[in-house]
């Protein structure tokens, strides 16, 4: 046992926690009127056959209703803004390819990441070392 553990034990023993006769009587009296509760195991109620039959029927009906409602729905026309005429779609023609504006990347930021990456590597290796030290301490003590 190391010095700290020994000291903690000794100091705990210095705490006087004697049960007085008064407290003893009080504890005995308080237990007198108490009854231990028995464990209640919840009983599984068995469901009747008609319950399962009714619930499956309800499920099938709900699914059928959803399918019917989904099929009845007609597609809404796309609203056209006033004053504009939508481009006519001619069968057999393909729309012109979409031209995206080119983005000019800032090349300077890419240059700056290199020292930061180095810093992250350093921090990660420090963290690993610290973790190993803590693990060793824990294994040694417990």
């Amino acid at each position: 046992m190391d010095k700290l553990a020994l000291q903690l034990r000794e100091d705990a023993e210095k705490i006087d926690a004697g049960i007085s006769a008064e407290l003893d009587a009080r504890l005995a009296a308080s237990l007198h009127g108490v009854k231990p509760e028995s464990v209640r195991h919840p009983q599984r109620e068995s469901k009747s056959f008609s319950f399962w039959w009714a619930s499956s029927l309800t499920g099938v009906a709900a699914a059928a209703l959803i399918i019917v409602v989904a099929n009845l729905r007609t597609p809404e026309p796309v609203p056209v803004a006033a004053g504009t005429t939508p481009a006519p779609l001619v069968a057999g023609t393909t729309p012109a390819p979409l031209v995206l504006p080119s983005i000019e990347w800032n090349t300077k930021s890419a240059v700056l990441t290199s020292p930061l990456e180095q810093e992250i590597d350093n921090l990660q290796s420090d963290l690993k070392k610290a973790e190993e030290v803590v693990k060793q301490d824990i294994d040694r003590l417990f």
Partner: protein
Amino acid sequence: MSNEAALIEAAKNGSAAAFTSLVFSYRERLFRFLLTRTSSFADAEDALQDTLINAYRYLSSYDSRWRFSTWLYRIAINNAAKLKSAGTEELGDLHDEGNDPLAHCIAASDRENLWQCARRQLSDEVYTAMWLRYVEDMSVNDISAVLERSVSWTKVNLLRGRKTLDVELNKNATDHKSKAYG
């Protein structure tokens, strides 16, 4: 079947005498612990009484895979926490040296009791973990069960608690030496 297991079985069947014998050896240990966790002597007594009543009432829920003391401490910690949340400590009792049960019960010494330092410097959970480890000799697994924490959390926080108290212990030793040499 061990003596404790036989007493537990008898108490589960409603024997108050068996329960009294079962908890007899734990009462003083629990009371010592509760004195350090509550703000007054009366609170510690109340917490002990509630712990024993709850233990007796809900003994049927005790799982024999765990040590009985582990289960008992879990109840005691809950009761101490209940008293704390009831607002008794907001009255400032704990900081009032005259009302502090720990200060009352500690035999006069030339240095501060480490458990007083621990209560000042550690969180409730770490304090409890340290107590269970170094006073009750509980295993890390049992402590994590009492605190409802993971084993790794318990290990790391025991280490932290140790480091904090090690500093206090060394400080006490230095103060003692400097006093001795004037």
